């Protein structure tokens, strides 16, 4: 190329950039929105939109049916199921969603070694971890809160008691917020352990389903043999039963534990502590994970 570019019509030459540079917090926000969009396949290939969108639809369909039933059945005064029960019933869908999207959020960057490119930019390690964690939790929150919103709007259309419904809706939102934070943390930690996407998917599913199966089985045995004290204790060892315990103790939910009692408010405090501990622990584990993942 000739040094004198002014004589070339088609080559407008190099233009330098004098505009604003918005710095670290803007970069963190950009990473957050890119990761959140990516969790639903937006900004990615058409193929990667399929699974999250299907799961999102599957998650909403029961809520629509519930609403349709509530409106259609004459004389009903409340929704057939509670707001807080919804996430427990659909936990397999939530698990599948997390297992498919947590690895795409973090394993991809590790596998294709994109992480060094992030850390060669204004953001720091804490920004990366916070953005990824917040994006995953927000994606889960959208997944779990949208059906609750549908149910709430439906209940208003069916002219159910506004105060009751709104209170139940609020309790449901707090519950799925806790669930989103807990699941996102656990899912990202498992996914960040391996650059292999397949292992990440398996690890997340394993973490959610195997403890749940074991806990439910032992709880069933304990219930049948009359050791009801062990039911609450066992509930501490799987993510979804933790959420169950917390919302039963504090959010007016009906427990899915055998016997349907769930922990008392006092023991529920232990549940809440374990949940918060796991959320903070996940964050710390992610920070430790990326200490060595720099250049």
């Amino acid at each position, binding site marked *: 190329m000739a040094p004198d570019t002014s004589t070339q019509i088609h080559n407008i030459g190099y233009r330098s950039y004098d505009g604003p540079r918005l*710095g670290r917090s803007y*970069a963190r926000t950009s990473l957050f929105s*890119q990761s959140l969009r990516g969790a639903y396949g937006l900004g990615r*290939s058409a193929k990667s939109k399929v699974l999250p969108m299907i799961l999102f639809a599957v998650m909403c369909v029961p809520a629509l049916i519930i609403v349709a039933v509530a409106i259609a059945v004459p004389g009903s005064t409340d929704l057939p199921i509670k707001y807080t029960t919804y996430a427990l019933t659909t936990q397999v869908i939530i698990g599948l969603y997390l297992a498919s999207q947590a690895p795409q959020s973090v394993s991809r960057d590790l596998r*294709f070694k994109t992480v060094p*490119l992030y850390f060669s*930019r*204004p*953001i720091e390690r804490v920004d990366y971890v916070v953005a990824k964690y917040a994006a995953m939790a927000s994606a889960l929150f959208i997944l779990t809160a949208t059906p609750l919103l549908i149910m709430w709007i439906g209940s208003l259309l069916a002219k159910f008691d506004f105060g009751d419904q709104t209170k139940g809706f609020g309790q449901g939102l707090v519950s799925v917020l806790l669930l989103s934070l807990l699941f996102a943390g656990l899912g990202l930690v498992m996914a960040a352990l391996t650059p292999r996407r397949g292992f990440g998917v398996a690890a997340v599913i394993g973490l959610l389903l195997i403890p749940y199966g074991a806990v439910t089985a032992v709880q069933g045995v304990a219930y049948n043999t009359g050791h009801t004290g062990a039911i609450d204790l066992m509930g501490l060892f799987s993510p979804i039963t933790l959420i169950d315990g917390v919302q039963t103790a504090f959010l007016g939910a009906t427990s899915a534990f055998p016997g349907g009692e769930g922990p008392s408010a006092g023991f529920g405090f232990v549940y809440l502590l374990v949940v918060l501990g796991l959320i903070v622990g996940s964050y710390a584990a992610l920070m430790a994970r990326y200490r060595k993942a720099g250049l």
Partner: protein
Amino acid sequence: MTVIATESLSKRYPRVTALDRLSLDIGPGVTGLVGANGAGKSTLIKILLGLSPATEGRAAVLGLDVATHGSAIRERVGYMPEHDCLPPDVSATEFVVHMARMSGLPPTAARERTADTLRHVGLYEERYRPIGGYSTGMKQRVKLAQALVHDPQLVLLDEPTNGLDPVGRDEMLGLIRRIHTDFGISVLVTSHLLGELERTCDHVVVVDGGKLLRSSSTSDFTQTTTTLAVEVTDSDRHPDGTAAVRAALTAAGIVLHAGEEQGLPGAGHILLVEATGEDTYDTVRDTVADLGLGLVRMEQRRHHIAEVFHDGDRAAQAAQAAQAAQAPVAAPPVPQFQTQQKGAGSDGA
């Protein structure tokens, strides 16, 4: 103006000293950083980006201290890693736009700069296709584009010609040259291939075992003395014309280099004569004419940067040149690298 300045910069890991009291002063332009694997190049880049604290000493990039202004430095500096770093399932445009925003560019500016930059590195229609289908050369261009998209004042390019074929290598080197001449961006480029940097860089820094071996402009490296390559014919009177000329020139007090052309085709018939001035040319011409031989060629040879690695052998070489008439086949030039494991130096942080 100084782009990169380090002052007795050291980085020690429990078992390895990656950088050992390295003091550098690098100005604008294209600077080559040469060293074998494990010489400390990657460690230096990590420190310059403010990602890894130095054990001792100080470093400043664009006048900003790396220990306290890492974020501000990374906003003004571009970095192209040595390894693959591109996700295969997004297009070059999407990827570079995202990276531009990660550097702090507003959305609209990020799109405009991406289109500009991809065009400048030579990616046109293919930029809308997923990166997974790109050739190595195209991937290198995307990697370069993401380092340039935020219009940095300095780019750090780590082995940008790795894995490229000779044509791709030449194109990449041409592009690196343009980054400075056309874009006005200073460049620090690492390589273990000296010949590449000779053609591309204004200034070359040689590090070995974490120590500064040499730092000077490329012209200093290659043009301090001119070497003439002389080839002559044989005649009946002088069946070995080369030997006869060598003897005659040595007698005339002219210094001949030995050994450096060994291994090349016809090397045994080429004399390397050190030219101290215009009169050397005359002496060679007259000597060849007096012997009644034909002068096949007499041309200027540039020194190769590789010779800096022989600095330790200089004395020995000079002695060898003195008795050049009987110069045996010298061993091929072997750079005096320490053979450290690269992993030991770069993974510790």
